[in-house]
Protein backbone atom coordinates (compact mmCIF):
# COMPACT_ATOMS: atom_id res chain seq x y z
CA UNK A 1 0.00 0.00 0.00
CA UNK A 2 1.04 3.64 -0.31
CA UNK A 3 2.44 5.49 2.70
CA UNK A 4 -1.08 6.19 3.88
CA UNK A 5 -4.73 5.88 3.03
CA UNK A 6 -7.49 8.25 4.00
CA UNK A 7 -11.23 7.67 4.34
CA UNK A 8 -14.01 10.11 5.16
CA UNK A 9 -17.72 9.78 5.84
CA UNK A 10 -20.70 11.83 6.93
CA UNK A 11 -23.81 10.65 8.77
CA UNK A 12 -26.87 12.90 9.20
CA UNK A 13 -28.28 12.90 12.72
CA UNK A 14 -31.74 12.48 11.20
CA UNK A 15 -30.89 9.00 9.94
CA UNK A 16 -29.76 7.92 13.39
CA UNK A 17 -32.67 9.64 15.11
CA UNK A 18 -35.10 7.73 12.90
CA UNK A 19 -33.60 4.46 14.15
CA UNK A 20 -33.64 5.50 17.79
CA UNK A 21 -37.38 6.20 17.66
CA UNK A 22 -38.26 3.12 15.60
CA UNK A 23 -38.87 0.83 18.56
CA UNK A 24 -37.60 -2.73 18.45
CA UNK A 25 -36.80 -2.61 14.73
CA UNK A 26 -34.57 0.43 15.12
CA UNK A 27 -32.89 -1.00 18.19
CA UNK A 28 -32.23 -4.27 16.35
CA UNK A 29 -30.63 -2.42 13.44
CA UNK A 30 -28.50 -0.34 15.80
CA UNK A 31 -27.34 -3.47 17.61
CA UNK A 32 -26.13 -4.83 14.28
CA UNK A 33 -23.94 -1.77 13.84
CA UNK A 34 -22.79 -1.09 17.40
CA UNK A 35 -21.06 -3.54 19.74
CA UNK A 36 -22.05 -3.86 23.38
CA UNK A 37 -19.04 -1.74 24.34
CA UNK A 38 -20.09 0.96 21.87
CA UNK A 39 -23.69 0.85 23.02
CA UNK A 40 -22.49 1.42 26.56
CA UNK A 41 -20.79 4.58 25.31
CA UNK A 42 -23.78 5.69 23.21
CA UNK A 43 -26.54 4.90 25.67
CA UNK A 44 -25.27 6.62 28.79
CA UNK A 45 -28.57 7.27 30.47
CA UNK A 46 -32.22 7.48 29.64
CA UNK A 47 -31.81 7.73 25.89
CA UNK A 48 -29.53 7.25 22.92
CA UNK A 49 -26.69 9.68 22.30
CA UNK A 50 -27.61 10.48 18.69
CA UNK A 51 -24.48 12.53 18.01
CA UNK A 52 -22.28 9.82 19.51
CA UNK A 53 -23.90 7.14 17.37
CA UNK A 54 -23.70 9.22 14.20
CA UNK A 55 -20.02 9.92 14.87
CA UNK A 56 -19.24 6.25 15.47
CA UNK A 57 -21.07 5.11 12.35
CA UNK A 58 -19.27 7.75 10.28
CA UNK A 59 -15.94 6.64 11.75
CA UNK A 60 -16.63 2.97 10.95
CA UNK A 61 -17.42 3.85 7.35
CA UNK A 62 -14.34 6.09 7.10
CA UNK A 63 -12.15 3.29 8.43
CA UNK A 64 -13.75 0.81 6.02
CA UNK A 65 -12.95 3.11 3.10
CA UNK A 66 -9.24 2.96 3.94
CA UNK A 67 -9.40 -0.83 3.51
CA UNK A 68 -10.63 -0.62 -0.10
CA UNK A 69 -12.32 -3.95 0.35
CA UNK A 70 -14.19 -4.07 -2.94
CA UNK A 71 -17.09 -6.50 -2.97
CA UNK A 72 -17.21 -6.70 0.83
CA UNK A 73 -19.94 -5.42 3.11
CA UNK A 74 -18.97 -3.20 5.99
CA UNK A 75 -18.25 -5.38 9.05
CA UNK A 76 -19.98 -3.01 11.44
CA UNK A 77 -19.43 -4.99 14.63
CA UNK A 78 -15.83 -5.85 13.76
CA UNK A 79 -14.82 -2.18 13.59
CA UNK A 80 -15.38 -0.72 17.04
CA UNK A 81 -14.91 2.97 17.78
CA UNK A 82 -14.08 3.19 21.47
CA UNK A 83 -12.37 5.78 23.66
CA UNK A 84 -8.91 5.93 25.16
CA UNK A 85 -8.21 7.22 28.66
CA UNK A 86 -8.15 10.78 27.35
CA UNK A 87 -11.51 10.38 25.63
CA UNK A 88 -10.07 10.28 22.11
CA UNK A 89 -11.52 7.75 19.65
CA UNK A 90 -9.61 4.53 19.12
CA UNK A 91 -10.34 1.74 16.66
CA UNK A 92 -10.51 -1.94 17.64
CA UNK A 93 -10.78 -4.66 15.00
CA UNK A 94 -12.04 -8.20 15.27
CA UNK A 95 -13.20 -11.05 13.06
CA UNK A 96 -13.60 -10.34 9.34
CA UNK A 97 -12.64 -6.70 9.83
CA UNK A 98 -9.29 -7.72 11.30
CA UNK A 99 -8.68 -9.94 8.28
CA UNK A 100 -9.51 -7.10 5.90
CA UNK A 101 -7.07 -4.81 7.74
CA UNK A 102 -4.36 -7.42 7.42
CA UNK A 103 -5.13 -7.96 3.72
CA UNK A 104 -4.90 -4.22 3.14
CA UNK A 105 -1.46 -4.10 4.76
CA UNK A 106 -2.58 -1.51 7.25
CA UNK A 107 -0.80 -1.55 10.58
CA UNK A 108 -2.30 1.44 12.31
CA UNK A 109 -5.43 3.53 11.82
CA UNK A 110 -6.27 6.80 13.49
CA UNK A 111 -9.68 8.46 13.37
CA UNK A 112 -11.01 11.91 14.09
CA UNK A 113 -14.70 12.66 14.58
CA UNK A 114 -16.64 15.90 14.67
CA UNK A 115 -20.35 16.46 15.07
CA UNK A 116 -22.61 19.45 14.97
CA UNK A 117 -26.32 19.27 14.22
CA UNK A 118 -27.29 18.07 11.67
CA UNK A 119 -24.21 15.98 10.77
CA UNK A 120 -21.33 13.92 12.10
CA UNK A 121 -18.16 13.70 10.03
CA UNK A 122 -15.25 11.33 10.53
CA UNK A 123 -11.85 10.99 8.92
CA UNK A 124 -9.67 7.89 9.13
CA UNK A 125 -6.02 7.61 8.22
CA UNK A 126 -4.33 4.25 7.90
CA UNK A 127 -0.64 3.56 7.56
CA UNK A 128 1.28 0.39 6.84
CA UNK A 129 4.44 -0.90 5.32
CA UNK A 130 3.39 -3.91 3.23
CA UNK A 131 3.54 -4.12 -0.53
CA UNK A 132 -0.22 -4.48 -0.89
CA UNK A 133 -1.77 -1.83 -3.13
Amino acid at each position, binding site marked *: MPAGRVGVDLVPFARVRRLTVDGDAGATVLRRMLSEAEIALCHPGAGWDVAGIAGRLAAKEAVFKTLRARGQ*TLPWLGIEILKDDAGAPVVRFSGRAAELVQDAGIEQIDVSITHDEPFAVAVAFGVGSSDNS
Partner: protein
Amino acid sequence: MASAGIDDVRAWILGRHPDRTTIAPDENLIESRLVDSLSFVELVYAIEGASGVEVDFDTIDIQDFQTLSSIEKAFFATTRIA
Protein backbone atom coordinates in the same frame (compact mmCIF):
# COMPACT_ATOMS: atom_id res chain seq x y z
CA MET B 1 -44.58 -13.46 -11.21
CA ALA B 2 -42.98 -11.47 -8.40
CA SER B 3 -43.47 -12.77 -4.87
CA ALA B 4 -45.26 -10.67 -2.27
CA GLY B 5 -42.03 -10.59 -0.30
CA ILE B 6 -40.03 -8.83 -2.99
CA ASP B 7 -42.89 -6.37 -3.41
CA ASP B 8 -42.49 -5.53 0.28
CA VAL B 9 -38.76 -4.99 -0.21
CA ARG B 10 -39.38 -2.79 -3.26
CA ALA B 11 -41.92 -0.76 -1.29
CA TRP B 12 -39.46 -0.42 1.58
CA ILE B 13 -36.79 1.02 -0.72
CA LEU B 14 -39.24 3.31 -2.52
CA GLY B 15 -40.50 4.53 0.84
CA ARG B 16 -37.03 5.94 1.48
CA HIS B 17 -36.79 7.56 -1.93
CA PRO B 18 -39.93 9.61 -2.51
CA ASP B 19 -38.38 10.93 -5.73
CA ARG B 20 -38.70 7.45 -7.22
CA THR B 21 -41.83 5.58 -8.23
CA THR B 22 -40.32 2.43 -9.73
CA ILE B 23 -37.22 0.26 -9.50
CA ALA B 24 -36.34 -2.02 -12.40
CA PRO B 25 -35.64 -5.62 -11.38
CA ASP B 26 -32.09 -5.40 -12.70
CA GLU B 27 -31.25 -1.90 -11.45
CA ASN B 28 -28.15 -1.97 -9.25
CA LEU B 29 -29.37 -0.73 -5.88
CA ILE B 30 -25.93 0.19 -4.60
CA GLU B 31 -24.50 1.87 -7.70
CA SER B 32 -27.68 3.89 -8.10
CA ARG B 33 -27.36 4.92 -4.43
CA LEU B 34 -30.78 3.60 -3.54
CA VAL B 35 -29.00 1.63 -0.81
CA ASP B 36 -25.86 2.79 1.01
CA SER B 37 -23.87 1.14 3.76
CA LEU B 38 -26.11 2.53 6.50
CA SER B 39 -29.40 1.63 4.85
CA PHE B 40 -27.96 -1.74 3.83
CA VAL B 41 -28.32 -2.94 7.41
CA GLU B 42 -31.95 -1.78 7.39
CA LEU B 43 -32.50 -3.43 4.02
CA VAL B 44 -31.25 -6.74 5.38
CA TYR B 45 -33.60 -6.37 8.34
CA ALA B 46 -36.48 -5.68 5.93
CA ILE B 47 -35.58 -8.73 3.84
CA GLU B 48 -35.45 -10.89 6.94
CA GLY B 49 -38.88 -9.65 7.99
CA ALA B 50 -40.38 -10.31 4.58
CA SER B 51 -38.70 -13.66 3.96
CA GLY B 52 -38.33 -15.17 7.41
CA VAL B 53 -34.71 -15.93 6.52
CA GLU B 54 -32.01 -14.88 8.99
CA VAL B 55 -28.95 -13.32 7.34
CA ASP B 56 -25.49 -13.90 8.79
CA PHE B 57 -23.49 -10.69 8.30
CA ASP B 58 -20.20 -12.55 8.54
CA THR B 59 -20.96 -14.76 5.55
CA ILE B 60 -23.04 -12.34 3.54
CA ASP B 61 -22.69 -12.37 -0.25
CA ILE B 62 -23.02 -8.84 -1.59
CA GLN B 63 -24.07 -10.25 -4.98
CA ASP B 64 -27.35 -11.39 -3.41
CA PHE B 65 -28.25 -7.76 -2.66
CA GLN B 66 -27.23 -5.96 -5.86
CA THR B 67 -30.67 -5.89 -7.51
CA LEU B 68 -34.28 -6.70 -6.71
CA SER B 69 -33.93 -9.65 -9.03
CA SER B 70 -30.94 -11.05 -7.12
CA ILE B 71 -32.69 -10.46 -3.79
CA GLU B 72 -35.75 -12.30 -5.02
CA LYS B 73 -33.64 -15.18 -6.27
CA ALA B 74 -31.71 -15.44 -2.99
CA PHE B 75 -34.51 -14.96 -0.49
CA PHE B 76 -37.90 -15.32 -2.18
CA ALA B 77 -37.47 -18.25 -4.54
CA THR B 78 -40.97 -19.59 -5.00
CA THR B 79 -41.81 -23.26 -4.79
CA ARG B 80 -43.68 -24.29 -7.89
CA ILE B 81 -46.19 -27.12 -7.66
CA ALA B 82 -46.30 -29.31 -10.76
